[in-house]
């Protein structure tokens, strides 16, 4: 796999919501990144609906149908419907396939009847647990690939939140170990993605489906979740920001293997991915409060092509079901962005989104387009290895945070960041040396199998 050596965007100023350098068109004819932002709704089934295929089909029929119906009722012109598989949908590939087929039929009915432009993204669950199985050779691995094959027949876009490196990541994140996080995310996660995405892309080519992209959800979002809000005492926010910068090296691998976007919504690293690759991206921000708290509520919309929520469980609210309500919210957010584009105010609108969160927290600061672009630039300029570019991204990220006087730190955060930077600077330059060091350091971590990553 050739590691990327150039930026799709010459500067962050060029980047704007709704337009990507490399727009895509789904098999149902929906254009993404071609000048307008589209909403992407993700619904999640209620507990117990996963008991049988019949009850799960009915749950998704209602949830996805409510979203499509609400678009028509309030006049949203287009939507992407995404379902993130629950365990059973990937474990039994026909379950995921039947739900994809059913949603495809619903979308086509709405298109035929009302002209609603819609497409379906099926996100296969990565049910491989690194410390419990060989990532490349287990029953679960086969199930994941079978699920892609089954769903790609009916879905417009497929994605995954892959799990490589999670065993080392979990061990290191609760031990404040930045070297281990680099190893987990960039070296292990990147290698797992290369193995997996080569296969996913082959499957999508056979089925006329877009290979959307991956996300560092299992690692960088774990860090973000643990960092929590302003009163949380789990891990430092600076560490979560560095994990995000590191994740760019890893998430980029999908595109280096042939993914074309739209990038997965919960990849908060996507602004940097768009800067490097030019692919359209999906992002989520304030609309994810249904699933988790966040400090990047507005800034995440600054360069999005799809504006999404985090999975919202299907329930009834005063205003209808959650899927209908969130579709309405997302659609109006998108309408405001598209209105700004139509009026020529998009850069002003973008500036408001960015400034609302720029100095709120380290994590929101580094996802501003200019900072994300600079992190991306560090990635492509240090492309000797997955490790070297991730380390460079982390160092650049830390330098930018430390160099911004308007970004305020508690003394704990300041000391922590200083320590991380010192450690990052002390690491070997060469990936081989770094891997040797880490294989020794983490050899006793329960369930760690270097062979899962070809090491």
């Amino acid at each position: 796999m050739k590691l990327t050596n150039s930026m799709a965007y010459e500067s962050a100023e060029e980047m704007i919501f709704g337009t990507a350098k490399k727009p895509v068109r789904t098999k149902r004819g929906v254009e993404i990144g071609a000048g307008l932002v589209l909403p992407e709704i993700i619904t999640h089934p209620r507990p117990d609906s996963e008991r049988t295929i019949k009850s799960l089909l009915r749950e998704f029929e209602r949830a996805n149908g409510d979203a499509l119906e609400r678009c028509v009722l309030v006049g949203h012109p287009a939507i992407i419907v995404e379902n993130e598989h629950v365990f059973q949908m990937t474990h039994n590939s026909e379950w995921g396939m039947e739900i994809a087929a059913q949603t495809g039929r619903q979308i086509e009915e709405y298109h035929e009847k009302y002209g609603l432009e819609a497409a379906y993204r099926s996100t296969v669950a990565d049910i491989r647990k690194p410390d419990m199985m060989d990532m490349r050779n287990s029953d679960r691995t086969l199930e994941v690939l079978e699920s892609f094959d089954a769903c790609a027949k009916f879905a417009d876009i497929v994605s995954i939140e892959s799990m490589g490196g999670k065993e080392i990541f979990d061990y290191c994140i609760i031990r404040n170990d930045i070297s281990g996080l680099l190893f987990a995310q960039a070296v292990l996660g990147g290698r797992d993605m290369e193995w997996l995405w080569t296969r996913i892309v082959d499957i999508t080519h056979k089925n006329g489906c877009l290979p959307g992209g991956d996300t560092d959800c299992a690692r960088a979002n774990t860090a973000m979740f643990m960092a929590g809000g302003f009163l949380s005492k789990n891990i430092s926010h600076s560490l979560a920001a560095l994990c995000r910068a590191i994740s760019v090296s890893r998430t980029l691998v999908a595109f280096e293997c042939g993914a074309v976007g739209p990038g997965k919504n919960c990849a908060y690293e996507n602004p940097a991915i768009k800067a490097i690759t030019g692919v359209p991206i999906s992002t989520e921000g304030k609309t994810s409060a249904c699933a988790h708290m966040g400090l990047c509520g507005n800034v995440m919309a600054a360069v999005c092509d799809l504006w999404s929520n985090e999975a919202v469980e299907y329930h009834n609210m005063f205003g209808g079901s959650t899927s209908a309500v969130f579709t309405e919210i997302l659609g109006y957010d998108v309408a405001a962005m598209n209105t700004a584009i139509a009026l020529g105010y998009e850069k002003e609108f973008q500036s408001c989104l960015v400034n609302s969160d720029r100095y709120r927290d380290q994590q929101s600061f580094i996802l501003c387009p200019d900072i994300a672009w600079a992190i991306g630039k560090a990635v492509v300029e240090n492309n000797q290895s997955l490790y070297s570019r991730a380390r460079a991204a982390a160092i650049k990220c830390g330098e930018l945070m430390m160099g911004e006087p308007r970004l305020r730190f508690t003394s704990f955060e300041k000391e922590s960041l200083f320590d991380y930077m010192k450690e990052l600077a002390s690491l070997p330059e060469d990936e081989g040396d770094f891997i040797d060091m880490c294989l020794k350091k983490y050899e006793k971590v329960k369930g760690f199998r270097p062979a899962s990553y070809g090491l």
Partner: protein
Amino acid sequence: MKFITETSGIFTRYDINVEVGRKEPRKISEDELLQKVADCLISGDEEEMETTIRQALRDREPMEVINKGLLRGMREVSRLWDEGVYFLPQVILSSDAMIAGIALCEKKMGKTMEKKGRVITHTAEGDIHDIGQVIVNALLSAAGFEVINLGADVPVDVLVEACKVHKPLMVTGTALMTTTMTAFPKIAMRLKRLGLEIPFVCGGGAVNEEYVTSFDLGIWGKEASQAVGMAEDALNGLGWMEMRAKWNG
């Protein structure tokens, strides 16, 4: 792009407003080496801990090193965490150092230290997100409990069988997804049928109080850090109803 200089009407940094100042750990022993043992534990320095413990064991009984060095050090770590000075990684590193220190003392004693009680931990079937369980395991082990860690994606039958065999004083269950937490009431029902009225602490991700308190035995664990206090309650003879009343209101 223009960047603002005044953000007071946009957001408030409450973390800076309520920042806890640096607090030095308290001195816990007049004995220089035992103080050093505690210092290693408080700073989470596992490597230095091993050297220091070996030195301390030259002319001290292992139980003295445990009781007057390690346990007192761990109490200091708990205090610093409770007061908002320490963050989770500092506690985990101290736990690692504690476990390493105890292992050396046990080796010298030629037997394992008597544990306070046994706790079984698991992550629900179909769920592979077990970081919450990993934290619970570390905290319980450091607090002197025997942890039987069944890992992630644990079938109901396996968990129930383990409870039959090990008769723990408490069971914990972790789940990130609402579609996997449905295993919890099944487990509770099976345990009850077997007459095993074991407090069953459930937490993680989307798991909520309303759900967990809807079935017998269930106690909702909001944070992993509560696990030790709950295990202490179970050890002190509180039943699941009393624990639920205490922790879940």
